[in-house]
Structure formats: structure tokens, C-alpha cells
């Protein structure tokens, strides 16, 4: 069994006329970094909520680490393993002081007092916020708040980190801070990451990309594979990253450029193809 396994998952919001998710199959292995993209209303946030048990599927099964996410009885065990960071940095911190906020999760799961202190140390240093331990949360920047939110989740020591558009409300600097932290957690600590986003450049960091449209997974593959299917993406109301778009224009004009989606790679290619005159 895979670490996360969803089979034929359906979800319909109360009073909604159609399903937000219709028949989603998904497997995620331990240590994988999966990005989920899709237009607004495609069901990507619903998927994130189902994995943490904030919602229960109307039909189908979801297992995380062997625990059913469809069963309300095992909710607590599920949430210990699946941490979620949400979109609005202002609406997920509980306490005024950073360390008190990070302590909230461990307190909830009954971690002994002494160990909570150690967990706060670990979590805050993992996101590079240890010097803000005693700071007022309201004085932090958006990016810093989101890093504290990540620390608050890490202190529970989850197996999976779900980012539900966690960078959508940040400026570029804050976005970079958060994506760097997440990348580091995935690469160095082996954290399984599932990131819901609509910033195409963040998608490039992922091992695998899922495209959702109208409640279904319509595309799945590495970023390179996904971004080479430009017309298809357009059909699902999505963009390719700017470098991929420029590469496509150059390819159409006769330059031999491969499937490229990061600006660094495109820079390398251009320097190779346009030698010093």
C-alpha cells in the first residue's frame, strides 16, 4: 500500500448541485513532493481538506499511512500524521506570541511539557525562525507568519505536509521564504509534501504534478512532461511558466530548444545556442 492512497473519491458540499470531486484516484509515496494545480473551483483545495479529515468523502476511500481518512473515529490519529498550512497567514495563528503558537499543536496531542520546549526549538529552527521565538506574531511579515504556521504543524511531527495555497497571499519575498523552507524539509528531512498552488514556478520544484479540472485528475507527470503539453494546459485554464512559453516561441521560430520550464535552464540553452559574436 502506498503512503497516501485515495480510491474513487467523491465529494459534494452540502447543498451543492454537483460534485466538487468526482472519482479521484491518487497515490503518493513517502518522501515525494507532489504539486496540485488547477483553476479556481477545480477541487484542489477540497482534496487537501479530505486528506486531513476536515471533510469526509461522500464516496470512496482514503488512507494515509494505513489510517482511513473517511472514518471520523480515527481523525485524531490522522491529523497527527497530516499537517496542513492554509492560505491566509492571519487566520491560522492561535496565540499572540510565536512560541505559544507553535506549542499549540503539541499541547493538543498531550506532549509532556519538557518535550514541547524541544519541539519548539526543532520546529522553529527548521523554518529559520528561532530568533523570533518570543516575538509578537502580529509584527511578523506574511512570509514569516507562514513559516511560523509551518513550524506549528512541524511541532506535531507529521509525516505529510499539505500546503493549501499557502503562498497565495504572500509577496515574492515571502513566497520564496516559504518555498525554500518547504523544499529543504522535503530534501533534507524526507518530508512528504503535497502543495496546492497556482504559481507555476513553484510547481517546478515538485517531483510530480497533478492537474485537477472539474473535480478530476486530468493530467499527471513530472513538471517537464506537464509543461510540454501547452495546449492541454490551456484547455484546463492554466498557464505554462514564462520560460516554457518563451522556449515554445523560440522553438516555433526554428531554434532547437528542448522541453524547458525553468529560467535557469533556458538561460543555459540560450548561451549555448547564441555564442559570442
Amino acid at each position: 500500500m502506498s503512503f497516501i492512497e485515495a480510491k474513487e473519491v467523491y465529494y459534494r458540499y452540502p447543498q451543492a448541485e454537483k460534485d466538487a470531486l468526482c472519482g479521484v484516484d491518487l497515490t503518493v509515496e513517502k518522501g515525494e513532493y507532489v504539486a496540485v494545480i488547477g483553476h479556481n473551483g477545480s477541487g484542489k483545495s477540497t482534496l487537501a481538506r479530505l486528506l486531513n479529515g476536515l471533510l469526509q468523502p461522500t464516496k470512496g476511500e482514503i488512507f494515509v499511512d494505513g489510517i482511513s481518512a473517511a472514518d471520523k473515529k480515527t481523525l485524531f490519529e490522522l491529523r497527527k500524521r497530516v499537517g496542513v498550512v492554509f492560505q491566509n497567514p492571519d487566520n491560522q495563528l492561535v496565540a499572540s506570541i510565536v512560541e505559544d503558537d507553535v506549542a499549540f499543536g503539541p499541547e493538543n496531542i498531550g506532549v509532556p511539557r519538557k518535550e514541547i520546549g524541544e519541539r519548539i526549538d526543532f520546529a522553529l529552527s527548521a523554518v529559520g525562525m528561532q530568533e523570533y521565538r518570543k516575538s509578537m506574531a502580529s509584527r511578523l511579515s506574511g512570509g514569516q507568519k507562514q513559516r511560523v504556521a509551518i513550524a506549528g504543524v512541524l511541532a506535531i511531527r507529521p509525516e505529510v505536509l499539505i500546503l493549501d495555497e499557502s503562498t497565495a497571499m504572500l509577496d515574492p519575498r515571502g513566497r520564496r521564504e516559504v518555498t525554500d523552507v518547504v523544499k529543504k524539509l522535503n530534501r533534507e528531512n524526507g518530508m512528504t509534501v503535497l502543495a496546492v498552488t497556482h504559481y507555476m514556478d513553484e510547481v517546478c520544484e515538485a517531483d510530480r504534478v497533478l492537474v485537477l479540472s472539474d473535480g478530476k485528475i486530468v493530467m499527471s507527470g513530472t513538471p517537464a512532461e506537464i509543461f510540454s503539453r501547452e495546449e492541454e494546459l490551456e484547455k484546463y485554464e492554466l498557464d505554462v511558466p514564462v520560460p516554457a512559453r518563451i522556449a515554445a516561441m523560440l522553438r516555433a521560430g526554428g531554434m532547437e530548444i528542448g522541453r524547458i520550464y525553468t529560467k535557469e535552464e533556458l538561460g543555459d540553452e540560450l548561451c549555448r545556442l547564441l555564442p559570442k559574436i
Partner: protein
Amino acid sequence: MKDVAFGQYYPARSFVHRMDPRFKIVLSIAYIVAVFLVREFHFLGFAAAFAFIVIATAVSRVPFFKVLKSVKGILFFVIFSSVLQVLFNREGTVLAEWWVIVITDVGLLRAAFITLRIMLVVMGTAILTLTTTPVEIADGLESLLTPLKWIKFPVHEFALIMSIALRFIPTLMDETERIINAQKARGADFESGNLFKRIRALIPILIPLLVSSFRRADELGDAMDARCYSGAKGRTKYKKMRPTYRDFIALALMAGLIAGIVLLNGVLGVPV
């Protein structure tokens, strides 16, 4: 604007700042009781209470004018109540008389007494708020209220509500400012017109604020659920308050003050 959540907190690392917030709260209440214990016109008792404030301020390293400034907020109230005393007191020797207004010596004394009493109480509690963050006060209250669990009072929930409220004050202040600006940009006018008109003008601010507060509450609820919140059961607490020698010294001083006031009340039968 963002500093509201700090209250009047004056950051420092002093004897008073490092005291257990529970002791500070209890001592503040004891102080209020002490001030009210002072019998009418026993001004020496007030002098003792004032001396206590001076000592407490000195060891708290808070500039004394900050403590004095706390009185500013209630100045109107103080003046109002002393004027009432002066005007409507008919006891004692008449000093001056004009139309329905009679000014007597007792009236003046009483006004002075009440004014001093209010000022002392306010200054005493100011030392608490100047040396303790609202978060500490909330934690202290939670701990002090713990015995109420026996009568099924939801102490944990109450404390959580307080701390979340404190946490959201700066956020909502910012939001209010933003909404006011947005509506002003659309030509809203909050400064002119009669009272009724002005209250109506608040609707475009209050409704968005309300809507967003509900949204925030919703999202916060999800975030708390996701972080395994399931009520007070099985929950541990990271912050633990422990009284130190400081708290007992302060306690002893307070006992001394109360004893002194009681003594002054008894020994000096005649008002000074």
C-alpha cells in the same frame, strides 16, 4: 495601531516584570481592597498606599510619569465626581454659597478623598498592566480560575477565547483601517451629518468587518482542527507559572500595607 495588543506594556526585565502574573493579579486586587479600607478622611492611609506605588514603580523600572499618565484616561470622571461632591454636599461648615450651590468644608474634603482614592486605584492597576503583557494576564487568569472547574465553568475555553481575542485585535484593527479607507475612497463620509446619519454611515464598515470576522473564525477553526485541537481533555500545557522569592516579598509588602492601613484606621480615631 498594531500595538494595542501590547496594551500599555512597558518592556523591561525588572523585579516586577518577572513576578508570577497570578501573584500580580491577586496583589492588584488586594491593593484595591487596601485603598478602599482606608477610612474616610484618614489621608495618612492614602500616603501609605502612595508610598507602596512609589516603591513598586521604582523596582519595576517603569518611568514614574507612565504610571501618572494612566490617570489621564479617567481625568474627566475624576473631575466630574469631585465637582458633584463639592456641589451637592450639605454637611459641615458652609464656606461659600451662591444660588443653589453650597460649598462646605466636608464637601471639599470628600471630593479630595474620592479623587485620591480613584487615582490610587488606577495607578495601582496601571503597574499591573505596565509590567504584564495581556497574554500573561490571560494565562494568569486561567490559572486563577481553575478551581471554577468544579462548578463546571469552562475555564480552558474561556482562557482560549481570551487569548484568541488578544491575538486578533491587531489583525482586526488593520482590517478596519483598510475598510474605512476603501469606503472613503468610494466617497463615504464619516465626519459630517447628524448622529443618525453618522451611525448609518458606519454600516459599510461594520458589515464587511462582520463578514470577514466570520470568515476568519471559520478558517481559524479549520486550522485549529487540523492541528489536532479537541478541547481541554488530554491537553498538556507548555507554559507553567512558578512563584519565586519575588512574589513572596511582594506578598509580604502588601500584607504590611494592609496591616498599616488597618492600624492607622484604628489608632487615629480622629481624621487627619
